[in-house]
């Protein structure tokens, strides 16, 4: 996985080549554009967000001076090329700021799904799983 992330940033042509090889072998490596969460999971995440996140990051997820925006250009600047697993671990370990880690694990996953939805990444048939290995295999990439 470390290799994959390094490739994404430094060796873009090579990663494209490797991806093609992978796909050609039918192993179906996840991309964030393949529908890695469900609409229902995102809906649950919206409820959690409105309870635990909204007062800092705003109703529109735009953030404020003390809390980063979670949508659009700002979000992609911070997370492009990193994995959903890293994002999940970040918020699970640090959020909400005064009770980090105290939400149920499924709530953190739901919030991640909601944020992905608000950033225009498509929903799919399967929920984001509670598997770091799987989450780490999903790169946040603005390019389809």
């Amino acid at each position, binding site marked *: 996985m470390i290799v994959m992330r390094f490739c994404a940033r430094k060796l873009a042509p090579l990663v494209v080549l490797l991806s093609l090889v992978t796909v050609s072998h039918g192993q179906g490596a996840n991309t964030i554009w393949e529908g890695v969460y469900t609409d229902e999971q995102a809906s649950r995440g919206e409820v959690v967000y*409105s*309870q*635990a996140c*909204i*007062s*800092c990051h*705003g*109703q*529109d997820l*735009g*953030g*404020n*001076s*003390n*809390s*980063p*925006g979670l949508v*659009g*250009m*700002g*979000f992609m*600047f*911070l997370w492009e090329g990193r994995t959903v697993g890293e994002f999940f671990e970040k918020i699970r370990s*640090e959020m*909400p*700021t*005064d*009770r*980090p880690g*105290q939400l149920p694990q499924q709530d953190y996953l739901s919030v991640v799904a909601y944020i992905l939805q608000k950033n225009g990444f498509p929903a799919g048939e399967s929920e984001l799983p509670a598997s770091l290995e799987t989450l780490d295999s999903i790169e946040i990439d603005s390019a389809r």
Partner: protein
Amino acid sequence: MNPINAMPHRTYLRIVTIVSILLLLAFFGLATPSQAQIEEFTAVTDEMLVSPPPGEWLSWRGTPAAWGYSPLDQINTDNVRQLQLKWSFALDDTGAIQAAPLIHDGIMFIPSARGVIQALDAVNGELLWEYRPAPPTEEFINSGAGTRAAVLPAGAFAGVGRGVQKNIALYGDMIFAATETASIRAVDARSGLLVWETQVADPTLGYFYTAGPIVANGTLVTGITGCDRYKEDVCFITGHDPLTGEEKWRTATIARPEDPGGDTWGDLPLRFRAGSDAWVAGSYDPEANLIYWGTAQAKPWARAVRGTDGDALYTNSTLALNPDNGQMVWYYQHIPGETQDMDEVFENILIDVDGRKSLFKMGKLGILWQLDRETGEFIKGTDIGYQNIVNLDPITGKITYRDGMIPRIGEELNMCPSTSGVKSWRAMAYSPDTSAMYIPITLNCELATFGPTERQIGGGGAGPVRRINYHHPQSDGNLGEILALDIPSGEVKWRYRSRAPFNTAALTTAGGLVFAGDWNRTMSALDADNGEVLWQVRLATSNQGFPISYSVDGKQYIAMPVGTGGASWSGSLPRELTPELSRPRNGSSINVFALPD
């Protein structure tokens, strides 16, 4: 103000105000009723605010000069080791606490999380009354009164910045507070019942308050924050009639295109001029009849992101305003065209030095500024030596950026301090007995990479920053420091360092003491002369807020608020750089100490 833009805005606010008041009367009147009526209460006058009795604490930093100094000396360097807890009172854990309590007639008035205000017997902590805003009703949320987007679920966590009310003001027989939904309110100091509430700005645009009001020459003055989003409006400070809440004046903290100084934003239209939040309460000089209020940096933080390398008036400035009409008598911009989130918004300490009426302040860079508070002229600047971003001309006060220190989008910058700053809202204190300033410092640096934002209405903001915090090379692994500087020379008298950062304002007393508390629950009393630790105690959670001293019936007390949440680094730097330290995530309280009976 552009009258074309102003008319609909004012009309809108008037409508919002009327609707809000009606709804507030209807719904917020359900707030917790008073527990007791305070019978012995003397109305607070302008004269009392300017020269409070020694045992009272009538303004957020003691007096309008904001020294953070108590003239009481019953507790002193000889006996401070005998201090013991007299009482403690739990505050709400539903939001952030950075309280600055007030003391009058033996009563403590304390701003708590989420708009709660409580009146406590200052001798024993008995609750006399509390004002508790009721959660907004569904009808209120759907009223279209302009607050819909800002209304949060009743149980929502009030996190960074939101929910904080640092200070309240006391005047006449009312307590004044500013809210997280951009309104100001007056509460009867005797009963805790709401008297009036005025919607000052539209919270759907992002506006809210963390700074509370001050009263200057009979006018209630408050500065707004939440000014980082792009909109057809700019940040401001307002003056109000304390009896009714009616707005008397409004002074913009950003130069509009057509205003003097409007060209300092290049050709950016009004909608892309953001920041200059007024998020820390000001000071007042009754002789000059001027209030001094700081403004924050421009938004987005980095020049390259906000699209101009102009000075961006009146960001990162000290403004001198006439409290009667809001006229800006002078301004001093500390860091023109600031570009790294190096805020200069903080407290203004008014000291006469060798007959010169001066104003002292320090921003995130750790430069102690001395200005002539009558004219705004630069007198002296003292760089305490922890920043690597700018050079300060000691003669003119002019700031120039060091080579390579103006950030470019996407390029990592190695800078000290981090965007957290070496100084933040944790106010410094001045002691006339030692002629020294005592400054809570946070030692830190950062690898910072600034990123872009959408330049569209509703966009903007501070701008994203990839942050990698690290210990300051001069810190020996410590995050915290109390720095004592001689005034006016700026020479270092002493430093006291701790692994944990200090997380409160400093308090000085005529007993030769400096009180402050750290993130790791330790409250300390230091010898103001040499920094020696004379007394320490561990409290429930992080010390956070503004300690005060007062006396009732001849007995001196020290009060320390503790709590969590709130802006600045409290949730980030200790977690990242001192991971072995931890604190309870609840336990907000006020803790009062005195000598044994």
